[in-house]
């Protein structure tokens, strides 16, 4: 028998095997799985009694919805190929799916495990919900029941929030992309949201499948604002639920969890109000008591002046406090009262009163002086009048004197006259004319009488 080379034999085996097993479908368990850095999968498929090498090129294995792992039972489709260099044969896999449990479930479990390992579900990454949210973004379908459910509870519990809606598809091929973009929008600073709700009503596993999307899970993880997942019913858990900061079983429950009860808060505020009043009251009554005891003490009694000041001040404070407590409406008014009542502000008022009093006194003195001055004036006027009347020529004439006039001029001196002058003589009761028939001697140096 003629011998052939190894290559020849291997070549013949190769052509026989590859011709006969161009398409096989094999069920087996994965063992010794290797995901090579080149991207290709290398492993063995085995059952209880046999095993066969298997490989799946990266160009094909990228399309898989799950990641193979040791122990996994799979059904592979492919062809048998021979690797001449090693003298080995293997299955070159074209497609692979999980045998037994569904691919989808497995993919879910695997993604969950992967993300868990990466720490996306870690408690340390969970952001706390705000105690009193003000701006809430709900990402949901605007026509869905989830929005109505959330709205109903929210308007009952805490209608003072600003509720913003981002409409998104919640199932189907485009849903993941839309949800991711909605999460980015909700994170926009201009909305300054403090919590985001991903809400969707119940549905089939396929309907909710989008919430197991890896990119969506990462987008939820990236959100700077706490994300609450409210997807499906209580029994439904999705990847989104694990990565969300808080998982609510339903949209209604989400509203209950996120929002405080406004009526409770109103009660809280009233209680704070009461406590504030009570605190102030007790403080002031203690203070009043302390002041009373100081007031009674010997040392404060002695300097009477200081005591008076202190009492006034205390009274002012006391009054101020009383009105501060009884009237909450306007503290400003109370302060004004305080100021009005206070000792220091009363002082200027006293000064004013004194000044007014002094002014009155000055006024009276002034009046007195003026009237006295007026009296003097009238007295001197009277005497002037009688003097004036005594100077009246009529009165002089009455006493027996006469006025001699020449050419209309009063003749005051003998020197003014010449012999033969015609003169007028005026008496009290009439006038006569006369002629100077003789001029007697003038008396020299005799002063003329001052005319008045």
């Amino acid at each position, binding site marked *: 028998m003629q011998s052939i080379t190894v290559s020849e034999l291997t070549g013949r085996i190769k052509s026989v095997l590859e011709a006969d097993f161009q398409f096989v479908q094999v069920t087996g368990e994965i063992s010794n799985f290797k995901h090579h850095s080149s991207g290709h999968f290398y492993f063995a498929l085995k059952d209880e009694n046999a095993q066969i090498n298997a490989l799946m090129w990266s160009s094909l294995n990228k399309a898989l919805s799950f990641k193979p792992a040791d122990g996994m039972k799979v059904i592979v489709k492919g062809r048998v190929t021979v690797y001449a260099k090693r003298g080995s044969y293997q299955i070159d896999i074209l497609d692979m799916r999980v045998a037994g449990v569904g691919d989808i479930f497995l993919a879910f479990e695997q993604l969950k495990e992967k993300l868990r390992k990466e720490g996306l579900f870690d408690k340390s990454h969970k952001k706390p919900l*705000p*105690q*009193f949210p*003000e701006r809430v*973004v709900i990402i949901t379908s*605007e026509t869905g029941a989830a*929005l109505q459910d959330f*709205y109903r509870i*929210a*308007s009952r519990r805490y*209608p*003072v*929030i*600003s*509720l*913003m*809606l*981002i*409409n998104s598809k919640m199932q189907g091929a485009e849903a993941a992309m839309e949800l991711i973009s*909605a999460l980015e*929008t909700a994170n926009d600073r201009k*909305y300054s949201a403090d919590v985001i709700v991903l809400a969707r009503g119940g549905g089939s596993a396929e309907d909710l499948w989008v919430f197991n999307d890896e990119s969506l899970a990462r987008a939820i993880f990236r959100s700077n604002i706490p994300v609450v997942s409210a997807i499906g019913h209580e029994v439904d858990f999705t990847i989104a639920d694990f990565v969300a900061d808080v998982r609510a079983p339903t949209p209604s429950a989400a509203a209950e969890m996120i929002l405080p009860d*406004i009526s409770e*808060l*109103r009660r*809280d*505020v009233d209680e*704070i*109000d009461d*406590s*504030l009043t009570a*605190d*102030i009251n007790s*403080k*002031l009554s*203690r*203070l009043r008591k*302390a002041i009373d005891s100081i007031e009674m003490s010997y040392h404060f009694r002695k300097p009477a002046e200081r005591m008076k000041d202190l009492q006034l001040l205390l009274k002012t*404070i006391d009054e101020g*406090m009383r009105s*501060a407590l009884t009237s*909450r409406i306007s*503290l400003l008014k109370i*302060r004004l009262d305080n100021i009005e009542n206070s000792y220091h502000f009363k002082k200027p008022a006293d000064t004013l009163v004194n000044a007014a009093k002094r002014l009155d006194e000055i006024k009276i003195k002034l009046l007195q002086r003026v009237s006295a001055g007026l009296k003097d004036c009238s007295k001197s006027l009277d005497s002037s009048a009688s003097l004036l009347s005594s100077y009246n020529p009529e009165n002089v004439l009455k006493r027996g004197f006469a006025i001699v006039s020449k050419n209309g001029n009063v003749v005051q001196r003998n020197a003014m006259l010449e012999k033969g002058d015609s003169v007028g003589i005026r008496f009290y009761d009439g006038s006569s004319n006369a002629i100077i028939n003789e001029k007697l001697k003038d008396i020299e140096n005799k002063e003329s009488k001052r005319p008045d």
Partner: protein
Amino acid sequence: MKTKKAKDQTESENFETAFRKLEEILNRLENEIPDYSIDKILEEYEEGVRLLKICRDKLKDAELRIAKIGAEEEDRK
């Protein structure tokens, strides 16, 4: 000027801040401020009254409104 400042303060204070400040005031009144610090007590009381008003304003009756945001922004409901 003072009125404007007070107004700005009111706007910038949300319920949470005002609520916490109120609790702090209560705590200070109960544990820190001595009875004789009349000015301080009055000051705290005044601030307390102001904060209470903010809290009450934030809790006053309102109808929940939904504003649509994102690609197709518009008012709804």
